[in-house]
């Protein structure tokens, strides 16, 4: 069941959000529970992008919700509720991540040199003729058995690949492709440029594809 099907009443339309915020301010516990059900899973996934340890990530998410409650009176609706919540989370997660005893600080969302999306030796070089063309074509995943791509084992491979991504790429792909956030929402919540967000997503998706390819090719 998709997120939208599970929670048909929680959408991101402005009027719906305004209603939700009003109910929250009026102390409607049901409204808060609905909000938590909707956003907690995504917040936990993203927090784990910053602080790896699940226990610490849960604390970060708790803190973020407290921040949401404290800031509710001041929320003016200039950004969407979702973006506002995610930004509170991001700020807490970053400062928590910095204080954590990590071997490396959280990598910023700046874009550095990275490996190519596909190993260059998969392509012909100028001594071969037709330089830059595939040496051997990628496999046709349309010929995989039904459900192979969406089965538990494959999802496990994808999840593992995401776990192993550099921090910034992990957070972006989690927000975009796992949680279904729009590009603009991610840029606003994480305070990243559109260009950087795109590059990080490109690298993340490329690496997950490569992991799936290794899995299917055996």
């Amino acid at each position, binding site marked *: 069941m998709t997120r939208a099907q599970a929670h048909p009443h929680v959408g991101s339309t402005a009027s719906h959000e305004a209603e939700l915020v009003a109910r929250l301010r009026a102390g409607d516990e049901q409204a808060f529970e609905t909000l938590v059900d909707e956003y907690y899973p995504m917040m936990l996934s993203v927090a784990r992008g910053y602080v790896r340890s699940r226990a610490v990530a849960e604390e970060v998410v708790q803190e973020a919700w407290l921040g949401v409650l404290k800031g509710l009176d001041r929320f003016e609706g200039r950004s969407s509720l979702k973006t506002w919540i995610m930004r509170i989370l991001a700020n807490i997660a970053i400062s928590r991540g910095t204080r954590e005893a990590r071997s490396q600080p959280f990598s910023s969302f700046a874009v550095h040199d990275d490996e190519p999306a596909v190993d260059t030796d998969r392509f012909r070089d100028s001594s071969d003729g037709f330089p830059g063309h595939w040496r051997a074509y990628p496999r046709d995943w349309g010929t995989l058995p039904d459900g192979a791509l969406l089965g538990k084992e494959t999802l496990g491979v994808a999840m593992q690949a995401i776990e192993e991504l550099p921090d910034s790429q992990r957070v972006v792909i989690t927000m975009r492709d796992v949680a279904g956030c729009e590009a603009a929402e991610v840029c606003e919540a994480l305070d990243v440029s559109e260009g950087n967000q795109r590059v990080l997503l490109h690298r993340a*998706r490329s690496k997950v594809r490569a992991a799936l390819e290794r899995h299917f090719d055996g």
Partner: protein
Amino acid sequence: MAESADHITCMEVVELVNDYLERTLPPDEVTVFEQHLNFCDGCDLYVEQLKRTVETVGEIREDDVPAEAKERLLSAFRDWKRS
């Protein structure tokens, strides 16, 4: 962008695919990209793999809210309500 403005290599395609799928590639580059896909089965297969990858990742279910965490949050909400 390319070895020439009129055609690109497969090596370039795999770096541009995401922009193409995100619809952020400039229009003239879209044309060259699609011309390449038209003749190159290899890149066609690669683009399909990328699309299937995004679909697969979209199926990852995040965990539901742990009961204990939810209780803490509801309790925090009641405290906030009272203050």
